[in-house]
């Protein structure tokens, strides 16, 4: 088998003309993407970065402010700080909570449970639905007067809070709602668990490890790259959360659910302060870059794929 393949390789050994043709083919194939990248990504990015140093609205024209927008954001804008706090709270509560639940469900489903497909579908299904549909549905569930949640609490003899209409409960409500969407993470953890070699568990059992020890000494270490990657990706996603507060609360009550992107959206498209909004976008971008660097630093995942390429 091998010698024949080598022979084949030798026959198609590249002459320099072929090489040039290859490079040309490569760049012709990439041309649409390169043009698109310049037009829809790199160009707008530079434009946005520049814009963040200007006062720019659609009506009055623009004026250079240097770091004025950033200075205003950090020193004179309590709403910005509020949105940063809201977003960070949402991200750092909902993501670990979601990860813990997703791992728990994934471990349950990884025990050779019968009807695996059914359970997996039940847990995953909410994740295929649009944020708008989820928001509209939960708007009814959270309704203090006729909603499902307070109806259920009433049966237990508890008078439920006003959920999204109460500034103390609005953000927790959105976090509760986010749990309904853990199915996507659950699938990723399930795949991670299925990738753990069973010999490791067998070896641990032979050495007398019980289920608890096996969990902490085999499952957790083997799953930790997956957990790390998913948590960081989850944080990146959560820092961009937008449609739920826009649809359900409009950022209220009393700005209790004003996320950074919602604030950015309001500044850009309701008040047409494009420069100021761009500055918010770049602060958000800086935060997301920090998370991204964490992923790249621990690039187990990418390394794995690179290894596959050379196989």
């Amino acid at each position, binding site marked *: 088998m091998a010698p024949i393949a080598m022979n084949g390789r030798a026959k198609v050994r590249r002459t320099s003309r072929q090489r040039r043709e290859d490079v040309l083919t490569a760049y012709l194939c990439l041309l649409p993407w390169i043009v698109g990248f310049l037009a829809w990504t790199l160009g707008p990015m530079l434009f946005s970065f520049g814009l963040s140093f200007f006062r720019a609205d659609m009506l009055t024209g623009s004026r250079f402010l240097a770091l004025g927008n950033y200075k205003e954001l950090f020193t004179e804008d309590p709403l910005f700080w509020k949105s940063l706090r809201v977003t960070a709270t949402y991200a750092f509560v909902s993501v670990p909570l979601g990860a813990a639940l997703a791992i728990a469900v994934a471990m349950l489903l990884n025990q050779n*449970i019968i009807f695996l497909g059914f359970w997996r579908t039940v847990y995953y299904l909410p994740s295929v639905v649009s944020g708008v549909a989820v928001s509209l549905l939960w708007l009814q569930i959270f309704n203090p007067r006729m909603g499902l949640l307070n109806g259920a609490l009433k049966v237990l003899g508890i008078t439920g809070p006003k959920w999204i209409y109460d500034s103390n409960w609005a953000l927790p409500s959105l976090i509760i709602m986010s749990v309904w969407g853990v199915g996507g993470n659950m699938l990723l953890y399930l795949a991670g668990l299925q990738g753990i070699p069973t010999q490791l568990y067998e070896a641990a059992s032979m050495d007398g490890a019980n289920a608890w020890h096996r969990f902490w000494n085999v499952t957790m270490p083997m799953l930790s790259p997956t957990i790390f990657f998913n948590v960081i990706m989850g944080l990146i996603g959560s820092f961009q959360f*937008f449609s739920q507060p826009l649809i359900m609360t409009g950022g209220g009550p009393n700005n209790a659910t004003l996320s950074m992107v919602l604030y950015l959206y309001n500044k850009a498209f309701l008040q047409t302060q494009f420069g100021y909004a761009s500055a918010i976008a770049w602060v958000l971008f800086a935060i997301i870059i920090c998370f991204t660097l964490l992923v790249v630093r621990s690039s187990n995942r990418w390394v794995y794929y690179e290894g*596959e390429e050379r196989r």
Partner: protein
Amino acid sequence: MTATAAASESKAIVSVGRSRSKRGKATRAVLKQVLLIALAIPGAALFLTPWFWMVSTAGKDTALIWHMPPVWIPPVYHWDNYIKAFRMGEFAMYYRNTAIICVLNVIGVVASSSLAAFPFARIRFPGRNALFLVVLSTMMLPGQVTMIPLYVIFSKLGWVNSLRPLIIPPFFGDAFSIFLLRQFFLTISRELDDAARIDGCSRIGTFFRILLPLTRPALGVVAIFTLTYAWNDFMGPLIYLNSPKWFTITLGLRRFVGKTSMDVQYLMAMTLVSTIVPIIAFFTTQRYFIQGIVITGVKG
């Protein structure tokens, strides 16, 4: 070879020795399944409750909606709520717009992304690693950074309040799809390419005659992801579309909230209907869908 044979032999001996406890083992397996299912049911019930509530609410009449405590199963299920709501909310228009966007996005993304993924998987050319790094970085870039300039550009081009800003950019490739397709292309043996090359096939010919036919499932994954994403997209339409005649389903649903303040059943009926296409897309391609999610690390 001999080692495994010996191992299986010793296993056989052990199993003979334990044959008496076989029944005990079977009982334990059944008990384990019962326990697992007992653990899975409460969570599953909680996850299904909102769905059930949505279906139930959609068939109620207004009086029943405001009934406290909540009624789980309406005595009469008003199927005509769905038809009434569809007409009331001008949903035919929204579905048409969404369908146009979805179909064109699927065509655009599949064509341009597979073409871009091909050289990353198959050709050695200067700048490949740098360009691939750019693809990966684009995946991480939050859309908010480019949102405002894109709006300015599209409004200068006169594209705002038309479907063009939602249709045209996908024809230039999508980073996630390029990444996903490259991963799939790498799983196809290069020897097939070499064989075709010996038979006189050009470089680009191997893409059309070998890679594309062999990675049809992967193209399906990209198509389904693109479809689901376009179907569920809210921020893009929200920014670029002003007049209701161009609204997509997500925008239409939001507009419908204002029209149904008390008659929530109509809103729930239309919300439920809007989820059918993504759900069907998921079910028909479940196996590949899950594979795609696992490879990209993106949750659909």
